[in-house]
């Protein structure tokens, strides 16, 4: 199987100003995305996901390294890549407000040279699939943020690209809209042979549910890359627990315990919910001891099945958000 995307030693830095050092957004990345794959980039804000997508979508040049998309070099052959890709960014409000939803989509379909009959049919189908049919003739400035975001997802698919880049496509959307988008992406890749989707997200569940393979990225580096199932196997050797405790000072002290690979803490009123990935169960005794020493009391303790979040915790040592 061919690779839709190949990155070799890809580095991208942004020049700082007098007070700020240069920022390394991508640090010597090697990455392959296979044709026909639904590939996820999972990482926190600022990890480098969007920078990578911009380079692949020919919007940004790499500082060094070699990147090919659909077999073409992103620096020298962008004009050969562009007819075959599209890109959607979540959390943006792009669109020509004075045009209707249908006009916006129609115009982009024409820039891609889609024949009239096919474009009309495809727009109607996609508007129906994304529950926007009743807004087709509404001016974009009059529709809600979520509807506008769905319109942009439709814009991405209306050109029927071979490779689509979806940068946090469900960011800020309600549960139903997110599900609609996820269902469509999954169907699009599965039902059309050879179509590839590269999706970035910081929602663990989204990556786990959607992607054939996931790359975990943090601070510009790929920390792991495999199927969600294989990634989870990495932490199945570890012990994953959730503890509910009363409030206590210095949650960070848990991270200093020998054998704790990562943890997250979440405060809920008077109580704290802590998720811990540890090398072995025996570490738990010291964890409880530390909590008690800081004035806390363990209310409940559960051993849990590992998730992608635990993989991230193990690799990075901290939570995703």
């Amino acid at each position: 199987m061919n690779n839709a995307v190949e990155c070799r030693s890809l580095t991208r830095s942004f020049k700082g100003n007098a007070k700020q050092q240069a920022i390394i957004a991508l640090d010597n990345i090697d990455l392959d995305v296979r044709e026909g794959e639904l590939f996820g980039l999972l990482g926190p804000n600022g990890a480098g996901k969007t920078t990578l997508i911009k380079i692949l979508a020919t919007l940004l040049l790499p500082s060094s390294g070699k990147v090919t998309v659909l077999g073409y070099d992103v620096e020298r052959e962008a004009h050969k890549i562009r007819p075959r890709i599209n890109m959607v960014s979540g959390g943006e409000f792009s669109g020509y407000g004075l045009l209707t939803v249908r006009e916006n989509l129609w115009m982009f379909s024409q820039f891609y040279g889609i024949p009239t009959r096919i474009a009309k049919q495809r727009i109607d189908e996609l508007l129906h699939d994304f529950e926007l049919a009743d807004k087709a003739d509404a001016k974009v400035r009059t529709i809600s943020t979520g509807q506008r975001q769905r319109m942009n997802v439709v814009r991405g698919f209306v050109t029927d690209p071979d490779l689509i880049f979806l940068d946090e496509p469900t960011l800020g959307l309600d549960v139903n809209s997110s599900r609609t988008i996820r269902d469509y992406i999954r169907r699009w890749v599965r039902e059309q042979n050879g179509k590839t989707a590269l999706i970035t997200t910081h929602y663990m569940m989204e990556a786990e549910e959607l992607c054939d393979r996931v790359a975990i990225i943090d601070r510009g580096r790929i920390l792991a890359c495999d199927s969600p199932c294989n990634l989870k196997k990495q932490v199945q050797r570890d012990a994953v627990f959730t503890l509910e405790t009363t409030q206590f000072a210095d949650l960070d002290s848990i991270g200093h315990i020998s054998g704790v690979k990562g943890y997250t803490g979440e405060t809920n009123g008077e109580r704290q919910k802590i998720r811990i990935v540890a090398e072995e169960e025996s570490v738990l005794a010291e964890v409880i001891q530390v909590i008690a020493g800081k004035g806390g009391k363990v209310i409940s303790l559960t051993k849990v099945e590992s998730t992608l979040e635990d993989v991230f915790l193990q690799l990075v040592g901290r939570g995703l958000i």
Partner: protein
Amino acid sequence: MAVNEHLRTIRWAAWLGWQMESNWTSPFLFIIYSIIKPIMATLIVVFMYLIILKSVNADPVLFSYMFIGNAFYMYVAQVLFGISWVVHEDREHYQTLKQIYIAPINFPVYLVGRGISKIIITTASVIVTLAFGILVLGLPVNIWKIDWPLLIVAMVLGLFCICTIGIALAGISLLTARHGTGINEGVAGVFYLFCGVIFPITFLPSWGQSIAFFIPITYWLELLRRSMMPETISISGLANYSAQEMMVLLLVSILLFLFFSLIILKYADFLARKKGKLDMTTAY
């Protein structure tokens, strides 16, 4: 194949531009606005003239020189500014520049397409202004004596030239958000000062006249005046050149500007991709 793609890009970019220019209000208000705006803009210059010379009849040739130059200068202000502003508008306001940029279209062709709506609207404004001048202010232009072939050829070349310069400014706009307006206004101001828009270039110092001879807008405006009112040749400072010579000069200077504009756009495009400027939103 490529020609078809370019024509398709121009068609839909022009359609988009037209929707954005005309769709913001009711057709009636749009027409009223399109008539009143150019007339008011022209009256500013007319009143300045009247303050100095008291009457249109005091020097009808100078008045015609000024009025025709000012009317056609609207193309420079509107189309040139309009094309370069597309970058700012699409990137900052509509946040669509990156979507347009990665579409399989030729970006300069898209810019020209967007400029076509400006050309249409400005043409209406120029016609309204000239009609106002002839009918109300007594501008001594006889429409039956206009050299239409010269006017049409000069118009086509001139508009091509303005689009070319607009493309260069759009390239610069790719790299800056804050200074985009200033650069546009600065360039338009330079052309207004040096190209014989409202006063003959003979009023300029010799170095200023040298600049005027380098800018194609100078020849374009002169050819337009000659086609409409040949009497203005006597004061233009370009009487030594025949219309054919001026046409050649216009063509050569356009080709030079086209060459440099495409280089500027290509380099700016490279820098914008290198620096990550194509999707920046600065709220300017």
